[in-house]
């Protein structure tokens, strides 16, 4: 199945004059800019206004090494893991290394010593050794999507330069993801139960987790594969289809003849992810290369 060039056309048309990309229209944001750059890399096509794009990204980095979602926000957040997914030379090796360091420093607040102490003083409970994931926003709990992005970013870092610290964080992140698996075998935003009631999974997050768990024991994921394949048949959003394909491809589990690319792409990330899923099917998975 060929790569859909319409998706790349949509991305090209949406680029702002400052070199970055908006979600739909308006000012540039970090997330769509990263996905657009990954799509161009997968297409092996030169990025238009590449110097502007790099300068825009550089201007969004904070002193702490992290990236903010856009220039008018002054707090480094989850989007830093997206920047760390880029090849280091895209933003500069030193800047990139600081992004990876920032990602390594983040954990959900429920894993922090302060939280454990407060919890002990309140309830007498000792920490149970729960695995730590990544939050969307510093000072809050860990959730599924930022943990997937953290794992994927650190895997790339580890492949470039293996280290025990990075390996341990990847293991922790993957354990966290497994601990948040829903009863139906998939994943939602990260709350498998609420007050004893089971919660249902989402296609997007199920695909993201399968991607982040690439290389792990597939036996534990058999139920996840069949759920993801069912989600894929239902096709509720282009991003959902793209993440499911990326996740299933990472385990060689995409069903033969599964339809592709017939959902509307309503945002730049939708178009970019659609393109990236198609590229993965052609053998280039931008999240795992």
């Amino acid at each position: 199945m060929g790569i859909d060039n319409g998706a790349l056309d949509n991305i090209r048309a949406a680029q702002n004059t400052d070199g970055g990309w908006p979600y739909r229209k308006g000012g540039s944001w970090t997330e769509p800019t990263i996905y657009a750059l990954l799509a161009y890399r997968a297409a092996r096509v030169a990025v238009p206004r590449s110097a502007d794009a790099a300068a825009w990204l550089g201007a969004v980095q904070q002193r702490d090494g992290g990236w903010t979602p856009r220039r008018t926000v002054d707090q480094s957040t989850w989007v830093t893991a997206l920047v760390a997914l880029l090849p280091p030379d895209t933003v500069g090796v030193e800047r990139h290394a600081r992004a990876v360091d920032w990602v390594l420093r983040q954990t959900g607040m429920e894993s922090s010593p302060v939280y454990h102490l407060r919890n002990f003083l309140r309830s007498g409970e000792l920490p149970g050794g729960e695995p730590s994931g990544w939050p969307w926003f510093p000072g809050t709990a860990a959730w599924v999507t930022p943990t997937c992005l953290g794992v994927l970013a650190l895997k790339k870092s580890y492949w470039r330069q293996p280290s025990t610290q990075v390996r341990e964080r990847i293991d922790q992140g993957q354990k966290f993801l497994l601990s948040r698996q829903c009863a139906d075998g998939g994943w939602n935003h990260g709350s498998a139960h609420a007050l004893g009631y089971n919660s249902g999974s989402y296609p997007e997050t199920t695909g993201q987790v399968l991607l982040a768990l690439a290389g792990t024991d597939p036996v534990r994921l058999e139920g996840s594969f069949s759920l993801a394949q069912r989600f894929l048949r239902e096709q509720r959003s282009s991003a959902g289809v793209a993440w499911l394909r990326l996740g299933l491809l990472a385990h060689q589990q995409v069903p033969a003849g599964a339809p592709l690319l017939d959902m509307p792409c309503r945002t730049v990330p939708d178009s970019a992810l659609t393109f990236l899923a198609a590229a993965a099917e052609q053998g280039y998975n931008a999240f795992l290369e």
Partner: protein
Amino acid sequence: MRRRDFLMGAPVAALGLAGCGRNAAPRSRPLVKVTRAPAYSQDIYDTVRHALAEHKLNVRGRRVVLKPNLVEFEPESAINTHPMLVHAAFEAFRELGASVTIAEGPGHRRGTLDLADAAGYFQTIPGFEDLFTDLNLDEVSRVHLPDPVSHLRSLYLPHTVLGSDLLVSMPKMKTHHWTGATLSMKNLFGIVPGAVYGWPKNVLHWAGIHQSIADLHSLFPNHFAIVDGIVGMDGNGPIQGRPKAAGVIVSGHDPIAVDATCCRIMQIEPSRIEYLTLAGGLERIAAENIEQIGEKPDSVATRFDLIMELRDLRRVPA
């Protein structure tokens, strides 16, 4: 200078313009209208039009933002605000001369337009995509909280909302497993941008859900509310509960009074809802301090089932 221009330029100072802040006594008894609406039929267009007329809204030339509650891809369930009610409000405000936008930022699901499509918004509201702003992805500015109850000191908020002259909260009447009930005030969680804070908007949970609701209310104390209680949700709301036909639309200018009235209709004791007492105080939510028009809450009250953990919400505190 219009309110929205001022807000964009100097959000800290502007927030004081909005009128009564938290715990401030209302200028007079707030008006809440309860209208019977047994089904999602063409009748609700007239129902909404009449309700706005009774509230004497002057929105000619103003920018109105309708903020429904969109949660899940389940058109047959009672999770989302029904698109027909949103369309009825859209038409009614347009007839009053307002410029109307529909905007929402769901808390868990990222594909807001896909979600709106699945929930029937594209089918029901002509030109929906051009009328709609995804508040999770909108331009943002930081707004300082003037007198926060939570530990939050500021929040990034979307320009579409900050630039509006009237924010209209259009929630579904639902039980909520953490807060007891989710109504017009809790619905404001959807204006907090996911692109900054994530999905879920966990910064609000860590700051205290009830406290955060009160803080958001303090930024928009006079937003208008139109509650979809035609078919609400009871049990394990706001997602996994059961459809519950209450057959009402509840509207008003004072969100605290509207939500307290909805609680009475749901047979939940409003003084047990912590965010209502934090934002308004017990006196503010007392039935005698709310001017009810249309149906009396008692006459349309219907028992919304509560999960075990919330059973105490029926009991009037000693």
